[in-house]
């Protein structure tokens, strides 16, 4: 790997860190502006102003914003995300259990959805304009349009209630055998795949079709190459950049955007934790979750950028 690539990647990394820093300021500012604070939330609406004031003093909420930010940010760096006010336990501890669950769900969903999406997208691109392409296009469009709670509810109704193949609720702690794993994960993973496969497949098709329209693809045809070879050997390597970005975008949704699926299947992930934290004005927890989502998103985009750089000889060899 040349120093040039390391330099490019280093720059992306620096940009990601800077973005995260800015995000931390924004998150802190927004949570500070929100009406009501932890003191008020803990004591309830019948508390006297004196009581609230006393608790604020105790929690350090009366200090200037900049001091509180630096305090929080310092804790962030040392791995101390603060104390969850409503649960009375460290945020790290709360996250620990949930993060594993979320990552597991995201991982399983990615492993299933990415190959399927690539297969569908590339197939549609090869048979562009044909019947297969039109079918796939209609199907994916329909899937994008159907809200996920409907998919999830129908899936539960059919596979859990009627056919009794899988359980309607997914307790991650139940997983003890491969069979239990399948019973737990099939329905939520299927629901999530419905949502993101369609998007990724459409983006993949567009990226590959774009390359198939280029002069070099026509040249490959005039050299006597078959459709499959043109798409896989010639078009695909040049479409890695846009496809990787489409995948990163879809997968980032698996971190924070899966509230509905987590709720329906009662799956203990981070998304539902954050929703609870917002309702409870549990500021430290909200801040930690948001930072986590942002880091996950930036990490995925970084990976996509790096694969785009590595797939492009113009950037790779200089």
């Amino acid at each position, binding site marked *: 790997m040349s120093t040039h690539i390391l330099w490019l990647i280093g720059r992306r990394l620096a940009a990601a860190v800077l973005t995260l820093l800015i995000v931390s300021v924004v998150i802190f500012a927004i949570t500070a502006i929100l009406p009501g604070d932890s003191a008020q939330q803990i004591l309830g609406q019948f508390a006297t102003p004196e009581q609230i004031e006393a608790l604020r003093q105790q929690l350090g909420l009366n200090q200037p914003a900049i001091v509180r930010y630096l305090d929080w940010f310092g804790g962030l760096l040392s791995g101390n995300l603060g104390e969850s006010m409503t649960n009375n336990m460290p945020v790290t501890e709360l996250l620990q259990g949930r993060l594993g669950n979320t990552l597991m769900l995201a991982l399983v969903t990615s492993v299933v959805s990415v190959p399927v999406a690539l297969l569908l997208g590339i197939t549609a691109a090869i048979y562009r304009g044909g019947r297969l392409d039109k079918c796939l296009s209609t199907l994916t469009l329909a899937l994008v349009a159907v809200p996920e709670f409907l998919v999830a509810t129908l899936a539960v109704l059919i596979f859990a209630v009627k056919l009794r193949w899988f359980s309607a609720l997914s307790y991650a702690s139940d997983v003890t055998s491969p069979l239990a794993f399948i019973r737990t994960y099939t329905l939520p993973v299927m629901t999530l795949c419905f949502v993101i496969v369609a998007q990724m497949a459409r983006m993949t098709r567009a990226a590959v079709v774009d390359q198939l329209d*280029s*002069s*070099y693809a*026509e*040249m*490959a*045809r*005039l*050299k*006597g*190459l*078959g459709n499959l*070879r043109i798409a896989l*050997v*010639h078009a695909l*390597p*040049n479409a890695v950049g846009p496809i990787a970005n489409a995948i990163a975008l879809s997968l980032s949704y698996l971190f924070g955007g899966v509230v509905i699926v987590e709720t329906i299947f009662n799956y203990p992930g981070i998304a539902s934790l954050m929703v609870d934290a917002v309702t409870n004005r549990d500021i430290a927890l909200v801040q930690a979750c948001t930072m986590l989502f942002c880091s996950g998103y930036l990490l995925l985009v970084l990976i996509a950028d790096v694969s785009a750089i590595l*797939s*492009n*000889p*113009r950037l790779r*060899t200089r």
Partner: protein
Amino acid sequence: MTELLHVKNLRVNARGGAGEIEIVRNVSFSLGKGEVLALIGESGSGKTTIALSLLGYARHGCRIAGGEIWVDGTDVLSLDDKTLQQWRGHRIAYIAQSAAAAFNPSKRLLDQVIESALLHGVGSRAELERKAVELFRDLALPNPETIGQRYPHQVSGGQLQRLMAAMALIADPLLVILDEPTTALDVTTQVEVLQTFRDAVKRRNATAVYVSHDLAVVAQMADHIVVLNGGEIREHNRTERILHHADDAYTRSLLGAARPHGKPKAVTRLPAEAEPLLSIKGLIAGYGKPDSLGLPASRILEDIELELRPGQAIGIIGESGSGKSTLARVVAGLLPAARGKVRFRGEELPGQLSQRSAEQFRRIQLVFQNADTALNPMHTVGTLLGRPLKAYFGLTGKAQRQRVLELLDQVRLPHTLIDRKPGALSGGQKQRVNLARALAAKPDLILCDEVTSALDTVVGAAILDLLAELRRELGLAYLFISHDISSVRALCDDVVVMYQGHQVQTGSTSALLEPPAHPYTDLLVRSVPELRQGWLEENRDLARLELPALDDYQDNGELCTFLDRCPKRINGLCNSTAPGRKTLSSGSVTLCHLDEEAMLPLLPVLAQPSAQEPRLYKVNG
């Protein structure tokens, strides 16, 4: 002689708005083994469509509607998809117009060169790689052993074009189709590529179909010429007959447009003491972040000196990357100069558009190369021309319409076009509207950036005539940027020759075309193919110039930019000191160490072409 290719009643249709339109109508021709046939015509003539049909291929939206194409006793159009795939790249090979776009950017060159032959079972990978290296050597590519390991962006345009020829020839095809293979190249590169193509074709006794719009290029390559217009054959004959005794009126008009427009126009010399309209002194400009001295990271223009008097036309000529368009951007206010002064009508011209006065803004107008993108497709011609009238002169309503009609008269367009949108106009008409929009401001100076380059030869020639007339009528001054010597010659009094940001020669148009001249000017002028057979043979030296050896040197950015290609460079002088400006006896100013005698061509000057064989100064495009 055995017949290899026979095309019979070929018809190709395109799907249009209502049903199908015939874009190739009943085209028939045949070609013997070892011969080269040229398909020539303007854009829309169907030449590329026919060439692609020979591979049994029609572009998206087109369909081969009928006819037969016999290659070596087989009707290509009757083959099924599988067999056709076997034929393509194996028996019939194709060389595309722009090699830069036709090579896959993310695959190594060698893999792409041998890919087709490998799939078609021509040989093993090792055999084919060996053969490819032989071909690379044959086609005069540098480092034939290793060049295949590179990616397309790592080699030059001329080299890519030759690599594509290697890709076509590696399977020893029966028929090679060359589709405008040199059109995208600079003129000095074109000569080299033409030379190697011609040698390769001759040595292999290959049969070839050569598609081009450039008669002078075709005259060097082809035995037969088929002239196409609107999808039909106008004339088909041997090359010498077409060049000297064309039967068809359309062929004669093509020949006429390809020839230079008589002698350079006798220009009414303005008194030298007239105050210059535009004067540029010591201009340095470029792109990228300025350093501590305020000089840009990438310097494009280096020490430009120019004086343009009212009503004068100066041509700026050079290859791609020479900095000619950057110069126009500086004058137009799109790029601030890093150093030097630009004065207009005696006043200093601010570098930023925002600091220029409305009056300066009005007096300098820019006309772009591509009228398609310069005109808003949603507006009518009336609106397009009305807006500058309102902005500069506050004209509205009836007065505005009156002036729009006058403008249409000035650019010789009928009044009926006023309500049309650009989409309903032809290429030439669009460029006229583009010009009229500049004229609406009643400018003193028009910057013309490659205004005829995107047009067909005949249409382009008409625009040049219009520019010349407008100049006489309105006393306009032009800064005419072009890569095409013949159009500069037809329009301009003076010429500036640019090479990689240096102004290598400045002088009157007639002085430019005759030696002594800067070695680059000399190469540029001599590289333009002439409209006669045998020119390429006579100018073999142009393709393989012997360069005097140089000791190792350090380029501090001051040395002559032409040093690495100059056939007359002097060791110890050119590679150690920066060249200075020198005035020749012809009045031209050159940027070169050589004295006048040394600038004369190494070889005896070719006999001046006779009246029947006029020189053609056509760079490309």
